[in-house]
């Protein structure tokens, strides 16, 4: 029972981390339709920016600086790069951001080396929040989860209840009409892109302290966040949250299972049938594939994702 609870909690926290990075992508890709392959690079930049600035202005200051700095990087990427290729279509967008992904990764390697830097949870935040059985649950993981929830409610409220949120929702549906009503849509979209990037930066600043801050960070979440946004239903924040939590919990449980496929076949009375290649394969080793398998299933069963209402 304790083990179950621990796996569940770990899964939820990992899911919330995935959500933190997906939240921005929901705005950028889900709503604006920009295929920003470099979104997770902004997450990585956030961690490094907080690591650098945190040394001088402390942990909380580092979070703020990282959020703003990555927001600015996003703003410049959109105005100076993405905007230029937008009219040529998604292929160009994808190629450009794919390039950006590697440029940022190499840049970070150049400046900070290929191995993780010592970005650590500050001492005053290193304590145990609660204990289940004999596993301790660090306070910092609660803080990560709380940041993710704050991000969810903050973004949701901004979209739902503010005038600028209204303009964004309308511009997503009919950009030309929104222009014809006197709103500057390109500026609104640049702002939205900057906010999406800033959210990724904040996610990196928070998560980079707990997980290793290394150039590989972007790779680890880069494709999974696209899976989340697609499964959740393009542009749906609720959908992205649900998909993130599901993926987090699923992965966490799969990792915890110690059986092999051979055990499964024998349990089903199909021992003789088991393919020799699968016999010794552990369930845990397929944990990484599960999100993609889930995406295939969801797309087959509900092509517009959980929350999608597209025909």
């Amino acid at each position, binding site marked *: 029972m304790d083990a179950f609870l621990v796996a569940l909690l770990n899964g939820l926290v990992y899911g919330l981390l995935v959500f933190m990075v997906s939240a921005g992508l929901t705005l950028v890709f889900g709503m604006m339709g920009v295929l920003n392959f470099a979104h997770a690079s902004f997450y990585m930049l956030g961690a490094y920016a907080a690591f650098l600035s945190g040394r001088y202005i402390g942990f909380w200051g580092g979070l703020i600086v990282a959020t703003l700095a990555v927001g600015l990087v996003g703003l410049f990427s959109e105005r100076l790069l993405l905007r230029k290729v937008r009219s040529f279509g998604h292929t160009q967008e994808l190629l450009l951001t794919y390039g950006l992904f590697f440029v940022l990764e190499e840049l970070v390697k150049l400046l900070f080396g290929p191995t993780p830097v010592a970005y650590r949870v500050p001492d005053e935040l290193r304590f145990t929040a609660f204990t289940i059985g004999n596993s301790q649950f660090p306070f910092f993981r609660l803080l990560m989860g709380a940041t993710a929830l704050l991000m969810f409610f903050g973004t949701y409220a901004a979209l739902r209840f503010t005038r600028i949120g209204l303009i964004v*929702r*309308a511009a997503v*549906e009919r950009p030309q*009409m929104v*222009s014809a*009503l*006197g*709103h*500057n849509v390109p500026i609104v979209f640049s702002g939205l892109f900057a906010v999406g990037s800033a959210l990724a930066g904040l996610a990196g600043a928070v998560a980079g302290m707990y997980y290793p801050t290394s150039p590989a960070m972007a790779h680890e979440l880069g494709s999974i966040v696209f899976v989340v946004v697609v499964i959740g239903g393009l542009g749906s924040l609720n959908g992205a949250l649900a998909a993130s939590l599901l993926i987090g919990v699923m992965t966490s449980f799969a990792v915890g299972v110690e059986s092999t496929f051979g055990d499964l076949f024998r349990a089903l009375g199909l021992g003789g049938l088991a393919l020799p290649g699968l016999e010794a394969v552990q369930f845990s080793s397929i944990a990484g594939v599960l999100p993609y398998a889930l995406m295939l299933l969801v797309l087959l069963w509900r092509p517009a994702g959980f929350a999608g209402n597209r025909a």
Partner: protein
Amino acid sequence: MLSVRDLHAAYGNIHVLRGVAFEIAGGEIATILGRNGSGRSTTCKAVMGLLPPLRGQVLLGGVDLAGRESHDIARAGLGYVPEERLIFTTLTVEENLIMGQKPAKSGAARWSMDELYDLFPRLRERRNIRAGFLSGGEQQMLTMFRTLLGNPSAILIDEPTEGLAPKIVDVVGEAILEMKRRGLAVVLMEQKLSMAMKVTDTVLVMGHGQIVFAGSPQAFEADPGIRRQWLEVA
């Protein structure tokens, strides 16, 4: 007030507008008639900056707006009610109206949400439902009101009565007369003569990407040749 001169526009290499020109004062209604495909909607888009014109001028109160971005043109006081209505289906009726709100330029008539609701109370009753659920007539009124809330000094309305029941056509006509009373320059795009003939001050006829006739409704009625050549389907 609104003066369009030598306006040219194209979709790729299909040259659709070839020197459209007309002029209209505040408090006046002009109706542009033309066969399907004659370029009336394209005229609206080119004037509004949604299809950047190749050449020509769009003067509003003496300021040339041609070639500016659409949101700039709207901010300068030009309103547009598209043929496809283009309501925001995922927003509520009231949110659609809020989307149209912007400050009035000096001298432009001001509209409030309340008085527009009074003109067509059914929208008030439905203000909290998603606009996608409205009937065609309700959507038409919503689009017009959305644009009016931006307090334009001139307004382009593309085929407002297309596919509407006669009863709602009268309501649309009433709203258009109210715009005239408040001093807006109203440009109507129509195919049929019916409603437009009752309210319009000027009739313009479009053909070959130009205005081929301009005159009073009486002059238009008196010249059946115009109708035969430019409006009737052979």
